[in-house]
């Protein structure tokens, strides 16, 4: 069942991505002031949103773990965090490339860039913390608490652009920006494609986690016998 779901989602995501790539590179014209490089936004913004969605899922899963003590939720939390970390890395790298062309610099200590990097460090810390704890129940409990703390940092990222003076461009898609409907459609479809990709990766990672736990329990059983 899970297998079929992953494959069918994969087909949808592949079709969508192919359609979006064709549209981004073949149909849409260069942007008036930025030229060619603006196309990065079609991946930059959806990657950020997917990463935020992943961290939200991880936070909810962590809370659910603390409430139910069901290890399934712990597996969802770690799978989702890992995938989110990858998307956030994609967001930071694409942003950096864009910044090199438009601003002339790879990096600036702007509020939003800094907060995104801080989030990346926090969630990397989450994965490192997991590795430092061997006992499964303690690992799940302690990393769930840490995940909730890390998630409390995410709103600061989202609002930072409004709170702080910043070099980062103001929102284009939502919150007062203006954009051509064709570009908007492609961005929206690409967002759907990347979120689907995130779901697929999370499901695959989740299966690995579950298999790993099964192997661990069999190993413990073998030791006990």
């Amino acid at each position, binding site marked *: 069942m899970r297998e079929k779901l992953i494959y069918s989602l994969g087909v949808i995501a592949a079709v969508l991505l192919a359609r979006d790539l064709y549209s981004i590179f073949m149909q849409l014209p260069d942007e008036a002031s930025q030229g060619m490089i603006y196309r990065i936004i079609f991946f930059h913004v959806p990657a950020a949103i997917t990463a935020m969605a992943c961290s939200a899922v991880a936070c909810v899963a962590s809370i659910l773990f603390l409430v139910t003590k069901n290890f399934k939720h712990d597996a969802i939390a770690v799978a989702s965090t890992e995938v989110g970390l990858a998307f956030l890395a994609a967001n930071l790298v694409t942003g950096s490339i864009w910044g090199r062309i438009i601003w002339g610099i790879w990096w600036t200590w702007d509020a939003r860039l800094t907060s995104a990097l801080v989030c990346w460090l926090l969630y990397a810390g989450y994965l490192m913390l997991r590795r430092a704890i061997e006992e499964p129940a303690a690992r799940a409990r*302690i990393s769930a608490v840490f995940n909730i703390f890390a998630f409390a940092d995410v709103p600061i990222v989202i609002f930072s652009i409004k709170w702080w003076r910043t070099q980062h461009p103001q929102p284009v898609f939502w919150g007062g920006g203006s954009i051509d409907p064709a570009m908007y459609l492609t961005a929206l479809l690409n967002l759907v494609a990347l979120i689907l990709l995130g779901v697929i990766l999370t499901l695959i990672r989740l299966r690995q986690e579950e298999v790993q736990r099964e192997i661990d329990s069999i190993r413990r059983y073998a030791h006990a016998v």
Partner: protein
Amino acid sequence: MDFFREMWVITRKDLRAELRTKEAINASLAFSLVILVLFSFAFDPTEKETVSMSGGLLWIVFAFAGTLVLNRSFAREVPNDCLDALVAAPISGAALFMGKALANFLLVLAVELVSLPVFGIFYNVHWTSHFWSLMLVLALGTWGLTVIGTIFSALTVNIRLRELMAPLLVYPMLIPALMSAMQLSMDLIAGKPLGGENQIWLRLLVAFDVIFTALSLVLLETVLVG
């Protein structure tokens, strides 16, 4: 009322244990002086430069020296199984956390209050122009530092590489609080009063303190007991 009594018992216990050995506080104080000296070699700033880097310098010193006190907060309960006794004691996790946090807050604040005048002397900075505002920022920033440090000390108390993991997790989490405390301290030392442009930072600092204090109070029992 019971809550505050229980909290105060823990605070007194921690303060007494620390003041009898003075292990953490001496190390922390010595460390903060060493960093202050090192920074003056590293940057050799002029008077004007010193003012513009004062906030950052001070809070780096406070954060690094503070961690020495905070990391030990729960770790010192591990020998002799004191942690099990604390968990088994008939007080709530929230009271245990607040008691420990308050004791840590006082210790870290004491270290800061000693290193602040030393900073003024070494770097030839007139830092008292907005004394009470600076004390307010110091208290708020230190509370944020203490809350995060205390709860993470509990989180990492039983894990491998504790000494390594705790700072690795604490500093990224602290960045919003440190950023605003640095900004506010710099403004105050440069002679700008609170309010107006820097009010947003003060709000951020207060919000940080409130959010993470509430989270820690709710989650401490989960961390220690499960």
